[in-house]
């Protein structure tokens, strides 16, 4: 466990922890020459464990954001292959493109056949570029829509994993009508008659996230975030300052627990201590169990009920006063 942990790149707010870990390591190296150090090591280790626990229960919104964006965090493809080594990927929008930022295919999770779709960030530089850092183009949303319709035809439930900074703000994205691609997904997802479970696994970035997020049940991983605009965008527009990103994170109420309190999502899924990147296997198992539980309860509904359930859920969102 400790050895796996060491490979993990620490985040800024984890620095005190990293310093302690280095001290422990240094003492351990001297342990052969000086057996008296064992007591010091134990004390430091205890301190380390205490700090670790308190650190992760008092996370600021910006810390959650940092964990959500950690480059070792499990991505959609990681979850799919951990859940189902025989996951069959389906490619393309049939009209000219196969957007690598949107992955989809046929997944068996906990004995349930389903269509799974997720945004994909990529881990190596090369992968990141191929996946456009997890920002889909219109073609990606249209590929997802094709798979949603496939699922609807065969009565297969749908799982979506959301981890995207948002839809790509690019020239050809606008040319190919990014707005229409997102809008059409919202429109068509509303009408599906199969269960849809969406999970925000990392960043839930704006309309680009929602485009695969119109679901009967919406889950968020403990350290994931979901917001109407990126905190950087919010800070630059409202505060006209890039230093105010922590304030924007705070003001927008974008963490899993806050979104749960706002009534927009159904469940927050615990992550391994420190974040899902500390233990992919455990993270996948916890999430998989929650998804299967939600799917099983949804599969008891009729097709009409499923659709009404989803539409009613979104119909209720909003806060306003009438006279």
């Amino acid at each position, binding site marked *: 466990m400790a050895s796996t942990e060491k490979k993990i790149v620490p985040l800024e707010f984890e620095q005190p922890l990293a310093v302690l870990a280095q001290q422990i390591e240094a003492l351990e190296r001297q342990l052969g020459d000086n057996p008296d150090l064992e007591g010091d090591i134990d004390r430091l280790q205890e301190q380390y464990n205490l700090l670790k626990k308190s650190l992760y229960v008092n996370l600021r919104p910006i810390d959650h954001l940092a964990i959500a964006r950690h480059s070792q965090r499990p991505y959609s493809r990681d979850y799919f292959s951990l859940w189902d080594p025989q996951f069959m990927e389906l490619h393309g929008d049939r009209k000219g493109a196969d957007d690598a930022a949107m992955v989809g295919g046929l997944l068996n999770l906990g004995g349930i056949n389903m269509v799974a779709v997720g945004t994909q960030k990529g881990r190596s530089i090369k992968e990141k570029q191929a996946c456009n850092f997890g920002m889909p183009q219109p073609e990606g949303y249209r590929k997802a829509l094709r798979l949603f319709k496939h699922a609807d035809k065969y009565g297969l439930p749908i799982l979506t994993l959301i981890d995207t900074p948002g839809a790509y703000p690019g020239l050809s994205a606008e040319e190919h*009508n990014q707005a229409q691609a997102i*809008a059409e997904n919202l*429109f068509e997802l509303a009408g599906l008659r199969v269960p849809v479970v969406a999970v925000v696994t990392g960043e839930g970035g704006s309309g680009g996230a929602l485009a695969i997020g119109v679901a009967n049940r919406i889950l968020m991983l403990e350290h994931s975030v979901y917001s109407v605009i990126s905190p950087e*965008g919010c800070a630059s527009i409202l505060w006209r300052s890039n230093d105010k990103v922590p304030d924007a994170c705070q003001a*927008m109420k974008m963490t899993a627990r806050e979104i749960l309190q706002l009534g927009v999502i159904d469940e927050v899924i615990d992550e391994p201590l420190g974040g899902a990147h500390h233990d992919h296997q455990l993270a996948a198992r916890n999430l998989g169990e929650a998804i299967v539980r939600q799917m099983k309860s949804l599969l008891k509904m009729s097709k009409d009920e499923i659709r009404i359930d989803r539409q009613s859920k979104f119909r209720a969102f909003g*806060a306003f006063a009438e006279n």
Partner: protein
Amino acid sequence: MDLKEWFASRQKRKELQENIKLPLTTEDYCALWTQCFQCRELLYTKDLRANLQVCPKCQYHFRVGALDRIDQIADPGSFVELDAEMTSADPLNFFDTEAYAKRQKEACRKSGLKEAVLTGICAIDSQPVALGAMDFGHFGGSMGSVVGEKVTRLAEEATNNKIPLIVVSSSGGARMQEGILSLMQMAKTSSALKSYHEAGGLYISILAEPTFGGVTASFAMLGDLVIAEPGARIGFAGRRVIEQTIRQKLPADFQTAEYLLKHGQVDMVVERARLKEVLSRLVSFHDVNQAGKNAADANGAGENNRNGAVKSEQLAK
């Protein structure tokens, strides 16, 4: 549904009666003279308004407020507002350099409106339609819970009354101050439009200067027919954000109505002077009561097209 019937049924609805605002007038915020953004000509503001806010020299289409827009489209005196009293809450208790609550008051004072969209039922050449018009002058036309709810209710009203739906969009996008709830308005409005679509409705979306972000990526782009106003800037991401991202200069006409037409995103670009006429003809061309019905009910071509106002004169020659 017949317009008269609608007005009759409306009389019974107390909450609506209270909200009748006829005729529509508003204090104009413009000064005596206005300089054209495009050709720099100095225009007498009153003349500009009389010309539907279109520069008589270069045809630049100025932004139009929601009240003026309704005047330009609806038959005089026919507009009956819905949900006139709905106002924003502050679910996040949002504060940036200023409290959201204070910003809301400021927006109302500046625009003279309660929110960034007006919705209601009206007639266009005596044909009943559900009409919504956004106002960029109110909080940048941003979509929070109220805009989402009013557009959703308007779509539901159109569904229940089987009448066409027209929404004029003009918006900077979602309202950040309502956080995730404002994002959810995209899904809520789109879902209502899905139900309207399946009921066979006709939804005409009009894209006016400017339409961006969450509004474009939801109800604005979901029209059965999509019309843009000349020169209007329409897109998902803002021009500056794109330029920063791709580090590349964008074409001059990027994200204009004409660019969208070239790239197949809108059915037509219609100058404001012809907008009402075009809407009237589109509404009369499509029989929303026919949609979904069996063609055999129509007893032949004439009946099938009884709503058709356009007649071919050429063929008779």
